[in-house]
């Protein structure tokens, strides 16, 4: 093998490591958490620039202009690169991730990627403008001879070491309860928020972690190639990484690695061997066309990639002494009994209103939801029942009025904070986490799981496994009660409509709520299960849970609900027992006719 062939292979190995890292970082953001970071490449650029100016000597009127020039020894420039990527993610994340819709986030990040490149290209004194930085000293310059093959081997080992750390951390996150929460957020944000998940925090953590990984990959790359310029980080480079994930399998770290080997490394390198033909620039252009075809082709024929995200199946029975030990787990709602004095309402709405561009969906509603009762909420379609539930739970902000939970005003609290205080809702339309199994859907909701935090996840499985086993048992008890045990490892998205409702109710119960807001919990459920749900709700009522339930089936309202509140056109038009309401003509005309 000639020296140049050997050097080519070394280069390929380093690129594989760098692209592998970048793909894992993007996989955490896009594949796992669902953040479509079309600006990913600027975080790699930040790491590369930071590592360059940290390791280069002061500029002092040389042929290049740049800031810093600290001549820091290895490994500080690499660490600095990782930090720079993470730091850049903070302001951008705060700008983009807090309020914008997902597709807007993607577009904003794309625009930011282009602007950042424009600014760096035009602002020469900062990072030498369009010409970029060159003569970036390789790590350990001065200590070892950086021109030998031995040094190349060392570089590959260092790259592989960083890749291993990144992969380890990413695997811990993906396989942890925290990773499960990220996937739940990816599947359905409002439902995750209604289960007490702080979406902004989750997104920021993922964004910063991805930034750190991208920054590190940039630092490693610039140390090897020694140059870095705006032309190396144009926005289409991010698209290549997306193509890699789509081909390899998003949501799967190994898929991300495979994608990195196939697309940026394999695909772009393979085309070097095509003999030059056509006008200059023809082959690179066709390469981009092929990247586009790869994306579209895979999305059409194999949307989940070559190595799809694995379905997580829990062992049949946790390693315990057989069936001997049947633990009496606390019944859902048990938390409520101790604190609530039965007569005082737990949830109170005070003149609450919600307007949509002039339409008064909820128009000054006051109501109490007391523990130990199921309060029914009925009314014709469009009366504002579901909107009221959304406002009470914080899914929609109230336009006016006050909402009190256990005496504390929660009107301005986001949904997740209300959920953490024990105020939990279900949705009228199915809102399962489709690509999580039924069991995982339940586990996501468990509050205060030690593995359901960024740091908890990084500490690894031993830190949270005992709690996980306990929760799996609790979830399995619920599944058995609702006769869903057989479907435990099915993807929730593949269930029937009625089964999805059950999953949603069980999920809410996993949270051990004090106030439960149910939006048509029996709609579409098999009749044999309806009775089961009803008796379960009765049991919850006896436990002291406060329940507000929207329901159309009047026989069920009659059996379960007292008091009943009737809404029409955004207002409460009657309340009391159903039998008393039946005697009021106005209400019968508005709703109960027949």
């Amino acid at each position: 093998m000639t020296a140049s062939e050997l050097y080519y292979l070394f280069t390929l190995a380093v690129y594989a490591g760098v692209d592998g890292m970048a793909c894992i970082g993007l996989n955490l953001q896009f594949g796992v958490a669902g953040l479509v970071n079309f600006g990913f490449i600027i975080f790699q650029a930040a790491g590369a620039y930071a590592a360059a100016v940290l390791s280069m000597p002061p500029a002092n009127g040389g042929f290049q202009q740049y800031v810093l020039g600290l001549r820091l020894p290895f490994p500080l420039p690499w660490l600095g690169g990782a930090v720079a990527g993470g730091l850049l993610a903070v302001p951008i994340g705060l700008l983009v991730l807090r309020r914008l819709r997902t597709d807007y986030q993607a577009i904003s990040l794309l625009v930011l990627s282009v602007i950042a490149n424009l600014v760096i290209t035009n602002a020469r004194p900062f990072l030498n403008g369009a010409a970029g930085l060159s003569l970036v000293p390789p790590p350990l310059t001065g200590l070892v001879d950086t021109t030998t093959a031995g040094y190349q081997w060392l570089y590959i080992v260092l790259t592989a070491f960083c890749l291993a750390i990144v992969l380890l951390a990413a695997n811990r996150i993906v396989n942890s309860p925290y990773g499960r929460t990220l996937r739940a957020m990816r599947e359905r944000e409002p439902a995750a928020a209604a289960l007490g998940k702080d979406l902004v925090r989750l997104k920021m953590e993922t964004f910063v972690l991805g930034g750190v990984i991208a920054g590190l990959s940039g630092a490693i790359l610039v140390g090897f190639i020694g140059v870095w310029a705006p032309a190396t980080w144009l926005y289409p480079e991010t698209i290549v990484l997306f193509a890699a994930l789509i081909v390899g399998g998003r949501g799967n770290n190994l898929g991300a690695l495979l994608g990195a080997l196939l697309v940026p490394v394999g695909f772009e390198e393979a085309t070097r061997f095509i003999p030059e033909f056509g006008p200059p620039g023809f082959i690179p252009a066709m390469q981009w066309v092929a990247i586009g075809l790869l994306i579209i082709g895979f999305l059409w024929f194999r949307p989940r990639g070559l190595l799809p995200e694995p379905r997580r199946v829990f062992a049949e029975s946790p390693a315990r002494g057989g069936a001997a030990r049947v633990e009496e787990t606390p019944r859902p709602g048990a938390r409520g009994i101790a604190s609530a004095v039965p007569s005082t309402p737990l949830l109170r709405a005070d003149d609450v209103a919600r307007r949509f561009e002039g339409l008064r969906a909820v128009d000054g509603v006051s109501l109490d939801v007391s523990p130990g009762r199921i309060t029914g909420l009925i009314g014709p379609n469009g009366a504002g029942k579901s909107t009221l539930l959304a406002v009470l739970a914080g899914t929609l902000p109230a336009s006016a009025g006050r909402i009190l939970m256990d005496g504390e005003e929660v009107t301005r609290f986001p949904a997740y904070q209300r959920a953490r205080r024990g105020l939990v809702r279900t949705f009228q339309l199915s809102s399962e986490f489709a690509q999580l199994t039924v069991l995982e859907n339940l586990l996501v909701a468990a509050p205060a799981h030690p593995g359901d935090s960024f740091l908890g996840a990084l500490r690894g499985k031993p830190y949270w496994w005992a709690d996980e086993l306990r929760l799996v048992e609790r979830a399995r008890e619920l599944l058995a009660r609702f006769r869903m045990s057989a479907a435990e490892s099915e993807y929730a998205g593949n269930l029937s409509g009625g089964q999805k409702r059950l999953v949603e109710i069980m999920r809410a119960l996993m949270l051990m709520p004090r106030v439960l807001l149910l939006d048509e919990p029996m709609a579409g459920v098999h009749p044999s299960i309806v009775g089961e749900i009803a008796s379960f709700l009765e049991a919850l009522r006896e436990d002291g849970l406060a329940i507000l339930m929207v329901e159309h089936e009047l026989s069920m309202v009659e059996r379960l609900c007292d008091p009943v509140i009737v809404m029409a056109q955004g207002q409460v038009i009657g309340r009391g027992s159903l039998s008393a309401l039946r005697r009021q003509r106005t209400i019968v005309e508005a709703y109960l006719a027949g």
Partner: protein
Amino acid sequence: MSLYAAAAGFGLVSASVIAIAAVGFTMQFGITNLINLAYGGIMITAAFVAYGVNRAGFSIWTGLAVAAAGGAVASLALHRVLYAPFLRRGTSHIGMVIVSLAAALMLSNVLLALVGYDNVSYVVADEAAVTAGGLILTRVQVVVIGIAVAAMLAIHALLTFTRLGKAMRATATNPTLARNCGIPTGRIIDAVWLITGALCGAAGTVAAIDSASFGVANGSTYLIVILAAAVLGGAGQPYGAMLGAVLIGEITELSAAVLSPQYKSVVAFAILVVVMILRPQGLLSKIGALGPAG
């Protein structure tokens, strides 16, 4: 004749160009609920079609008409061949954004392979200056402004007075309900792609007329400016896009006069960023960017 008056005049021309493009883009998004990132690619392709017509000896205005027709056909084809099948499969919003980004990449690179990297320019016959109210513009620039005003009035009339426009608005608000009311939403959507595609093709040509020379790389620049104008005004809102176009056009040209021309797009984007912080739904929209996507 101050520098600023001249800049304001250029700003008016830029605003006209951006307005034609941004209104088309935002209507696609508002009615079909799809962010078509291949829009910039179709614009620049249309500009090259007009270049071909122009080079064959026809006037640039003939080229403009051909480019508008080409843009309409290309947009409809893109919808029918690529987007509609993915939509029928229930691809998510964000999946569609990725598909359209891939389409954009393919389109501009096929064009690149065909026409190469060199910049070209149109042959425009008449460069006589027109003076009006302290502004000095060329005849061509006045025509560009005229085209933009006519296009905006036509869009306004379409949406307000015609059955087609009303059906478009109904489809935008609630496609299922519109279908149940007897509106043939499939044909309405086709019409949207044709009309906005024509705007896209025309916009690509006037943008190329407005710049001294142009190349394939301009496509992505156009797209970014259009995104800025559309988001600034409130995405999906045609009148918002007009407002956004005027703001972006004037701000870029005036800041070029005050600061340095290098930073003109940076300034426009800085304003976009501020708007995203303070009013993420855009200037003229109440919901827009907020809330979960479908």
